[in-house]
């Protein structure tokens, strides 16, 4: 391993060291505040080392990882999202009893898993990333052990993630048996997908990825886990975990050129369409904000799959922008839920939001902006993202999918506006006590809100960065 390899791996190494440091510090001195500061500075340092890594790009580090701008771009998203989640968790966990410090340890490891996925070039690193992520998430989902729903969420996630890992392993075995390689690139650039065994293997890997992305028909766990897990963990599952898996999926399935494989193309089309419909239609019947956001995230992954179908430079840029916007929006939305939550339960009932605009106008403004972004309305990043994805769809002449996307955007309005209506309806008579927003949570939300409007109004610079990133990943 050369110096250049180490430089390329610097963001990973820093994250790993942070995990070790946090673990050791917890052993000697339990302090919630100290742990958070260590965690946040670990994420910040890792992000700060990106320029170092960027000097030696693109680089294949061992057969396992390929560090290129694509990996760094998604890695950046993941690290930034984990940073936001850690900051939000501080005010959330501060109200809870029991040990809080290990939460951050798990969070760092999960983030590391996501980061590995974004750069995985080999079945081994792929599986390693998935397991690092999943194992941490079992514990994180059930972190508040006094809550029944939390434990339920943890167990549910454990069983389904274990099943999906099994699928992935079996799929890998089949693919390896057929092609004799575990390198994604070699497999993808092989003579295409021929023969039932290879196809079966790829489909089984897809099943595993589908579970992680929660696209139909592998979406059943989402609402329960979203509802049961602590709000910041839900934010992590919805953003970093899905984003990392999507980065991997997009990288290799567009390499496979799925438009040349009618079977795969049909599978993706069906999954995209049914995710949009299932997510949006089921969300209509929910009264629980976390469940609404869960179903909404299913439909958003459906929109994202449109970019996989469209495949091409425009689609890659669209996917990256859409994910960025989705990260900001989802973190913001769950951030508001996190900050409103109390010790006993998360603020996930629609009633908790009634009259929020008049009792806590700041949070209400952020939440409303996030909901509008999810609905894809101008002034927000979500609007540009949806526009971009639609442009990719129209460019590849996917008329059916684009029309269905539009129908679904309209259906989506119903339930996003339901929350907005609640926020702006008259407040309940008993006024909430004057709350003080925690510093960390307030800063994160303000930053997310600024980014949301900035990317909505002036997305030029981000698009420029994205174009660079995707350009390198194909070169």
């Amino acid at each position: 391993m050369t110096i250049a390899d180490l430089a390329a791996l610097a963001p990973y190494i820093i994250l790993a060291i942070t995990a070790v440091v946090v673990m050791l510090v917890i052993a000697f001195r339990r302090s919630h505040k100290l742990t958070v500061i260590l965690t946040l500075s670990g994420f910040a340092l890792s992000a700060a080392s990106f320029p170092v890594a960027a000097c030696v790009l693109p680089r294949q580090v061992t057969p396992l990882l390929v560090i290129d701008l694509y990996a760094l771009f998604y890695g950046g998203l993941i690290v930034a999202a984990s940073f936001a989640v850690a900051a939000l968790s501080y005010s959330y966990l501060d109200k809870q009893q029991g040990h809080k410090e290990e939460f951050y340890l798990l969070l760092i490891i999960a983030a590391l898993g996501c980061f590995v996925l974004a750069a995985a070039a080999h079945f081994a690193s792929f599986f390693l990333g998935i397991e690092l992520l999943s194992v941490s998430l079992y514990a994180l989902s059930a972190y508040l052990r006094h809550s029944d729903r939390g434990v339920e969420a943890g167990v549910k996630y454990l069983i389904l993630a274990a099943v999906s890992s099994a699928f992935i392993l079996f799929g890998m075995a089949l693919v390896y048996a057929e092609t004799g390689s575990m390198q994604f690139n070699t497999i993808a650039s092989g003579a295409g997908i021929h023969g039932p065994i290879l196809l079966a293997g790829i489909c089984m890997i897809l099943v595993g990825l589908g579970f992680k992305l929660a696209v139909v028909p592998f979406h059943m766990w989402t609402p329960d886990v979203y509802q049961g897990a602590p709000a910041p963990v839900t934010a992590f599952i919805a953003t970093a975990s899905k984003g990392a898996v999507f980065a991997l999926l997009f990288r290799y399935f567009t390499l496979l050129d799925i438009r040349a494989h009618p079977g795969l193309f049909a599978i993706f089309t069906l999954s995209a369409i049914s995710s949009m419909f299932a997510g949006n239609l089921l969300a209509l019947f929910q009264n629980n904000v976390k469940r609404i956001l869960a179903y909404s995230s299913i439909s958003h992954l459906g929109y994202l799959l449109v970019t996989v179908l469209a495949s091409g430079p425009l689609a890659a840029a669209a996917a990256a922008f859409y994910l960025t916007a989705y990260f900001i929006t989802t973190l913001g939305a769950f951030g508001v839920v996190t900050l409103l939550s109390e010790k006993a339960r998360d603020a996930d009932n629609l009633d908790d939001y009634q009259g929020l605009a008049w009792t806590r106008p700041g949070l209400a403004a952020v939440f409303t902006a996030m909901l509008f972004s999810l609905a894809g309305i101008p002034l927000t990043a979500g609007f540009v993202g949806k526009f971009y994805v639609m442009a990719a769809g129209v460019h590849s002449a996917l008329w059916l999918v684009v029309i269905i996307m539009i129908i679904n955007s309209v259906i989506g309005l119903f339930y996003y506006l339901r929350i907005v209506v609640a926020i702006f309806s008259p407040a309940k008579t008993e006024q909430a006590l004057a709350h003080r927003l925690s510093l960390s949570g307030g800063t994160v939300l303000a930053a997310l809100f600024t980014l949301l409007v900035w990317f909505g109004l002036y997305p030029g610079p981000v698009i420029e960065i994205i174009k660079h990133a995707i350009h390198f990943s194909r070169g």
Partner: protein
Amino acid sequence: MILIWLLIIPLIGGLAAWSLGNRNALSARWISLAALVLDAVLLFGLWLSPPSVLALDRGSWLIEFNNPWIPQLGISLHLAVDGLSFALIALTLFLGIISIVCSWTEIRERVGFFHLNLLWILAGILGVFMALDLFLFYFFWELMLIPMYFLISIWGHENRVYASLKFFIFTQAGGLLMLISILSLYFIHGKNTGSYTFDYPLLLGTVMSSRAAFWTMLGFVIAFIVKIPVVPFHPWLPDAHTEAPTAGSVILAGLMLKTGAYGLLRFVLPLFPDAAASISQAMLVLAVIGILYGAVLAFGQTDLKRLVAYTSVSHMGFVLLGIFSGSGIALSGAVLQMLAHGISTGALFIIVGMIQERIHTRETGSMGGFWSAAPRLGGVGLVFALASLGLPGFGNFVAEFMVLLGSYHTHGILTAAAAAGLVLSALYALWIVQNVFHGEPRPGLKLPDLTARETGMMAIAILAILWLGFFPRTVQKIVEPALHSIQCGVSPEKPTPDQGSGI
């Protein structure tokens, strides 16, 4: 830069009104008023400064602003004003000021937030009337919806949540279809020329197969005729207009409906001249159906506000008729109708609002004899009822007459049917006067007459509508160069030797 300021002033004014309105409601009202008056002064300056809008050549912009926005996707901040935009911007500011004045006492809760929404809607509408980049146009098109949604759902009447949702979903669905069309136009043009752009002047004259042109146009047309609205896309209108607060109804009827007609004029006719001609027959039939259907339904309403809302469906039918008739006179009449209808219907909604503020109902059954109790209110009501039925002397008469005159040539039977709509409008207008202002006053009726603020506001509206009726030529002079180039399907940038049919 003036164009950017026209947009920024209301946006900032709205934020200022919001932040100050929490402490002092009156300051929010004055700030909003000041912002719009400042905008109006800017517009007046534009009027005075050369080149005069009256002497504008066919096919040139009065003022233009073009700056890259998202260059990676070929999106620019391209704003421009020609005669047509100028007239509609003037209408926007006029009705904007009126709607702030008319909510002076009606809105007492969350005043700051109300004015934020009001000014942001106006900014969105101004943007729609100025945008020359299709992405920017869509941006403003959507931007004006959200504050309007809030306006209806927070300050509206009994059924406001339902009405605001319906409004939002109808217009959003139409807007998204337009977005697909914008995108397909973008890619067709990009494929043809290699330059991917949303710039309107560049997209003009894009070559495409007639099938592609038809479907692309259809997305635009649906978005616009939902807004106008054309039967059968009108169900959102009566609910939204009825439930909105007075200022909301004024803006909806006076301005938002006009954005649909403006879209047809600015985008559908010039971008897809042949495809537009191919659907003109169907559009004319829909227009006539709208005229008659709106008038008949208006007559059947017992809720005064709903009645006025349905008259909008009827009057906007004339606009559609004028746009698709293919005649220059009718086109000019359609624009005049947009202005006259904006003022007269806006005023009617204000009158209903004033009545409701006083007697707390909109049911015509519990009205009557208002004239004797409040003569000024009665007088104003009579004036606008007569304007609405198209009495000579008012702008509406000139406009409807020109539309009928222009389209009679080519579509005799349809025009005759549309003329029947005039008879029906006389019916409901006189019925309003008869039932609301005459007859026996109800026992115990307490109806304070118009205050000085209300009288002044209505007097200005009356002057405006009379001016349109007596001096329509001024407006025509302003808008006709723009209409010429629209009608010839030629970009204002590149006039052709063909002068088209004279007006």
